[in-house]
């Protein structure tokens, strides 16, 4: 578990990362609620975007390993690439799960209307997995850290908009609403809606399962071993 331990350590080593990883979720707790939209308070919708950003920032650590040649060094050491990948992802998942817990727990203590905190927590966790897997697949294509991050940032904004996190899907034209379903962000927004409108439990399961499916797909695509 050396890699796991040090990944955690590195994630928090950078001051900017530290602020980003702790302050952003806490800020999300205290954002106000809107009128009719979004289904939960603003912060709970925007936390989805935060998760996407955190995921790419964390995944960049792996990208750095590849670009700087640490991966070469590891491939000469008696460590399987699979174990390297697994321990990294585990560490990131732990960070994201903790963040989700902080947001849900904090909201519950601060008296936000969360409807079903457990379902919300589960939604955040499965969305975190999907976000991590997407970030992993994304960085496997790039060589430059900045380019990867800025590109992804633009895509996040677009996906959040098209997926219905920033604006309600109901006002979208028909075609856009259909296309939105392709995006994982849609399923996240859908999950929030389902929690707020007290849909049956099975509905939540369906949405979480879809998000996990996304995670699997991108994990398979992103786990290719690259050296350069």
């Amino acid at each position, binding site marked *: 578990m050396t*890699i796991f331990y*040090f990944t955690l*350590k*590195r994630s928090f080593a950078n001051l900017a990362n530290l602020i980003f990883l702790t302050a952003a979720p806490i800020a999300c707790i205290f954002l106000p609620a809107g009128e009719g939209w979004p289904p939960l308070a603003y912060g709970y919708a925007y936390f989805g975007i935060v998760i996407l950003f955190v995921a790419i920032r964390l995944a960049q650590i792996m990208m750095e390993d590849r670009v700087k*040649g640490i991966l070469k060094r590891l*491939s*000469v050491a*008696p460590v399987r690439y699979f174990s390297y990948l697994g321990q990294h992802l585990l560490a990131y998942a732990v960070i994201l799960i903790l963040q989700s817990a902080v947001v849900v727990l904090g909201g519950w203590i601060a008296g936000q209307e969360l409807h079903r905190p457990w379902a919300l927590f589960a939604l955040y966790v499965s969305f975190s997995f999907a976000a991590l897997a997407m970030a992993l697949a994304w960085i496997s294509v790039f060589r430059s850290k900045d380019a990867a991050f800025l590109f992804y940032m633009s895509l996040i904004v677009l996906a959040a908009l098209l997926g219905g996190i920033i604006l309600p899907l109901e006002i979208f034209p028909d075609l856009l609403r259909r296309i939105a379903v392709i995006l994982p962000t849609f399923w996240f927004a859908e999950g929030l809606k389902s929690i707020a409108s007290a849909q049956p439990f099975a509905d939540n399961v369906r949405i979480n399962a879809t998000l996990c499916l996304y995670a699997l797909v991108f994990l398979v695509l992103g786990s290719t071993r690259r050296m350069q």
Partner: protein
Amino acid sequence: MTLASMQSVLKRYGSCAALDYIDLEIHEGEIVGLLGPNGAGKTTLIQALTGILPVDQGRISLFGDSRNPFSDANKQKLGLVTQEIAVFEELTAKEGLEFFAGIYGLRREEKKKRVAEALEFVGLSAYANKVPHKFSGGMKRRLNIACALTHRPRLLIMDEPTVGIDPQSRNHILESVQKLREQGTTILYTTHCMEEVQEIASRVVILDQGQVVKEGTVQQLIETVRHEETIIFDVADPLGIPLRQVESIAGVSQVSVSGSRITVISAAGAGNLDRILSVVQQHSGVLGIQADKPNLEDVFLTLTGKQLRDREGSR
């Protein structure tokens, strides 16, 4: 014992062969210097030998195992110092080393001890708790080396460990390599700097265009080109010397004058210097003589017509 060997290894990038049927053997206790200009295929060779790059043809064996050379047991005995500075910027020197020690399965006390040793070895003990972000180039290089030492490899492969650093750090690194050898580590060392190789290598392999051009001890290699000698005379009256006459001495291939300095390139061997000197002395007072012995740079120049060190410092 042969620790590592390559047999007619071929590696292509597209249609050009980065390794063109290479044969190489590394025996226990050697320091093998792999010498060649930029782009000769040194890094490719190392990546092939360590299993980072799959090769197109040929056989590689590590520690006598050619069936499964890159098994964990073999990797445990192998150390690689990468050409890039592959250290963690966010972690302190000590933490970074602990990471790599952990990768190689070292635990607790053992790990602490080995990390302290490695830091001591590269002379960074005083900076153990500093983040490499602020290190100088030479210190980063040394840390980069330490990362490959905590598990005490039997075979250490160093890919240009001295690129772009100050002479002091460089001397330190060269001394460390000598010390490692005394402790029984076998080392494969690539560089395009011939002084380093001349200083430390027990055997030299010269690589050019993906082929082994020549190999042998430094002495052997120099023997093969011990044909020329550059003799520089500082004379009082350079104009008075009959260059034609000097040129006509058997063995002299080139005579040139610049200022009060006459440079004669001649075949090495007893008597030549005498004959040239006697001609020169007849016509002018000689203030000083300097004769350069051939070095590896000349070997390379003779074999390929290329300078080893073109473009150095451009990275």
